[in-house]
């Protein structure tokens, strides 16, 4: 510990990396000191992931120097970097679901450990050292996300890591699990291990990081000790301009009922019923797995649900698939952007025109000029940052991808827009733009159902909040009157 704050474990000097058409990193320099927790923040596309992938050997840098633990590192492979003592825990954890906990910790190293049977005892020691009680014989598929993260940490320790990089570790953890993780992070720090902690959640950075580096557009903007930087400063460095508020003021015109949902029953959902008013943003609060996504999927016809009753503008409608839903003016921006929302290999144009394709078709033929017009109009209206409409959407940042998906639906002017985690993994600047857009949609007479794991977002954006737990609607609140604790209590009412 005595060496800390003077002797860097990791030194990155003037590292650059370009991909076709993008300068992902531009002469980035960064020092991480021993035994510190070093936060890295930045919008999507700022270069955080690229930098981490260079460190772990997934990418090779174009120029610059990297020193780890006093040694210059050059052209390493991921395995070499782990053996040197540099581990990365990715957001999408790298575990083999069908193998046991012990086997995962020592994956690919059974012979070094003295056989497949021996790994359990050794994994036990490592897990105990971070206070984790999971049975090492258990199969990984049975574990929760937070338990899996523990396994990844044990795996990192098994390599005798000196530096552990955590990429958005909290994105799928509950509050309690997060506390566990923080405890372990402090533990690791006390053992002299350095941590690089990448996160979008500024609260976490302020809670336990010692130092923070802000990145933007492939540059390091600043590295500061956490006690000399304010939240607003950090945000303005990230987005390159000042943002007065994180949320726009809430619109408050609410009209008559547009949607009346009753009697949604599935394996998970039990008699789900609620209504939505014209011009309203309705927040749907619940835990992952509470049935919130299943509810909106049932309304949208994405899953087949029998005997449900859906009334739009007082008229009973039958919705058996997304095509029916779209016909009745319902739109859904799904939870998982990459898997359910985007066609990654396709152009921005084709991703935007997707939902309007029916309208663009005359006698079976697509009118390509109209298609380009639609895309151009939405790119302009939503300020989607893209080199051109022909660019593959995969190359855009998360925020711009999400705006393109919104544009896809707004072209249809839907009466009811369902947003399932619309700002997940999106940077602060783009989030604000999406909030403004939501406001505009309801002011123009649309209605929104908003699902989000970020309670502040729901509380600040919604006119009304309903809670769902274990497939049942458990409460209804006015977010101006109810406290966050009251609402969460209902979301946990099993």
């Amino acid at each position: 510990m005595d060496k800390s704050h003077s002797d860097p474990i990791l030194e990155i000097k003037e590292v650059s990396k370009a991909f076709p058409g993008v300068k992902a990193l531009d002469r980035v320099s960064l020092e991480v000191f021993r035994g510190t927790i070093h936060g890295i923040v930045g919008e999507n596309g700022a270069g955080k992931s690229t930098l981490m992938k260079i460190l772990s050997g997934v990418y090779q840098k174009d120029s610059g120097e990297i020193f780890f633990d006093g040694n210059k590192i050059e052209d390493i492979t991921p395995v070499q970097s782990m053996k040197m003592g540099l581990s990365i825990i990715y957001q999408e954890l790298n575990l083999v679901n069908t193998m046991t906990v012990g086997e995962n910790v020592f994956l690919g190293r059974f012979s070094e450990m003295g056989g497949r049977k021996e790994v359990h005892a050794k994994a036990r020691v490592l897990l105990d050292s971070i206070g984790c009680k999971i049975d090492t014989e258990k199969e990984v598929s049975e574990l929760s996300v937070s338990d899996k993260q523990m396994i990844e940490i044990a795996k990192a320790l098994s390599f005798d890591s000196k530096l552990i990089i955590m990429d958005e570790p909290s994105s799928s953890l509950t509050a309690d699990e997060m506390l566990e993780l923080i405890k372990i992070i402090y533990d690791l720090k006390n053992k002299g291990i350095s941590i690089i902690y990448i996160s979008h959640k500024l609260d976490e950075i302020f809670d336990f990081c010692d130092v923070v580096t802000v990145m933007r557009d492939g540059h390091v903007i600043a590295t500061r000790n956490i006690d000399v930087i304010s939240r607003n400063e950090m945000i303005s460095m990230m987005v390159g301009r000042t943002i007065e508020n994180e949320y726009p003021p809430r619109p408050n015109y609410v009209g008559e009922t547009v949607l009346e949902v009753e009697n949604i029953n599935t394996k998970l959902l039990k008699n789900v019923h609620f209504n939505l008013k014209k011009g309203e943003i309705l927040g749907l609060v619940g835990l992952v797995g509470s049935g919130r996504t299943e509810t909106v999927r049932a309304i949208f016809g994405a899953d087949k649900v029998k005997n449900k009753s859906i009334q739009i503008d007082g008229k009973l409608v039958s919705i058996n698939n997304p095509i029916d839903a779209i016909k009745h003016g319902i739109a859904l921006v799904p939870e998982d952007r990459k898997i359910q929302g985007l066609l990654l290999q396709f152009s921005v144009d084709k991703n935007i025109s997707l939902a309007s394709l029916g309208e663009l078709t005359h006698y079976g033929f697509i009118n390509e000029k109209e298609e380009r017009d639609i895309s151009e109009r939405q790119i302009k209206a939503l300020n989607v940052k893209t080199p051109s409409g022909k660019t593959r959407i995969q190359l855009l940042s998360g925020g711009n991808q999400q705006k393109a998906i919104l544009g896809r639906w707004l072209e249809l002017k839907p009466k009811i827009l369902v947003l399932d985690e619309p700002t997940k993994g999106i940077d602060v600047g783009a989030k604000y733009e999406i909030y403004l857009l939501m406001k505009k949609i309801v002011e123009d007479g649309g209605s929104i159902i908003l699902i989000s794991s970020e309670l502040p977002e729901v509380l600040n954006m919604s006119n009304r909040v309903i809670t769902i737990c274990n497939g049942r609607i458990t409460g209804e609140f006015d977010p101006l009157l109810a406290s966050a604790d009251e609402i969460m209590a209902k979301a946990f009412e099993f």
Partner: protein
Amino acid sequence: MDKKITTQSIIAFARNNLIILGIFVLAIITTFVEPNFLTVENLQNIMRQFGPLIMLSLGMTFIIMGGFIDLSVGGIISLVAVVTVSLIDSIGQVAALIVGIVIGLICGLLNSFLIIKGGAFKQSEALFLTYGMSVVFTAVALIYTGAAPVFLTYSKTDYSIFTAIGEGFVGPVSVSFIIFFVCLLILYIIESKTHIGRSICLTGGNMTAARLAGIPTEKTIVFIYAVSGIMAAIGAVVLASRVTIASPIMGKGYETQAILAVVVGGTALLGGKGSVLRTVIGTLLIIMMSNCLNLLGVTTYIQYMLRGAILILAIWLDNRKQYSEGN
């Protein structure tokens, strides 16, 4: 976008078109070693083999672009061929041809029905399912004929239209080429201009996202399998008309060749990208390769092995391309 030709771009081009270049090199070698290669007869021979294969390859292109696969086309060819040939004497040639095409259509619809009802929306699931159907179709053909080949009897019946499909000419152009060209034109227009064509690409690109955005993905699946069935039936008719005999196992192996032609042409095996035009090139290359190897005296069995190797190579190159783009 600057399109300057640099050494790097040439190397990249060579790498992306490795198989096509390889087959060209083979053709050049063959021309030198075996002067028979560039004779009119041999080129006609190549065109003859082109006929049946290109039909099912065109159908297979839509299937693969949609993210699926159809191993049943071999079985469909066998079934359609025996039924068509056997019916000519009793119901007349035009009616028999119509029955043949309708059987192909029904087989395709049956495939898509089973895929949708069975929830076999992954390519691997469709692979096993259509393999199973191939066995079924072949078995039906075997039962129908009692496992014996069916011949044209050359009785009083008129075979002129039927034989013209495989052997006839209109001026200098063969009838089978005209059939091919009309099919290509129709499929190309569908692929590039129509809603259903776009839906095929979108379904192959990301079926979940396409469905949630209101693309009729199930209809698309029905469409591509129906097209594949019809194209296999046309292929069967061209083949049977040329050899004037139909055996209940004559379609065996055609499905591999069709997949090979599509993938060598450059349609992504995972779906979402591709074109029937590319498949024309792919099919030509596959047939030219086998022709060259024949002329060079390479035995059929070694040729089978080479075809397998090329399919593996094509998949490997395709995946590598996807992987590097994926980052």
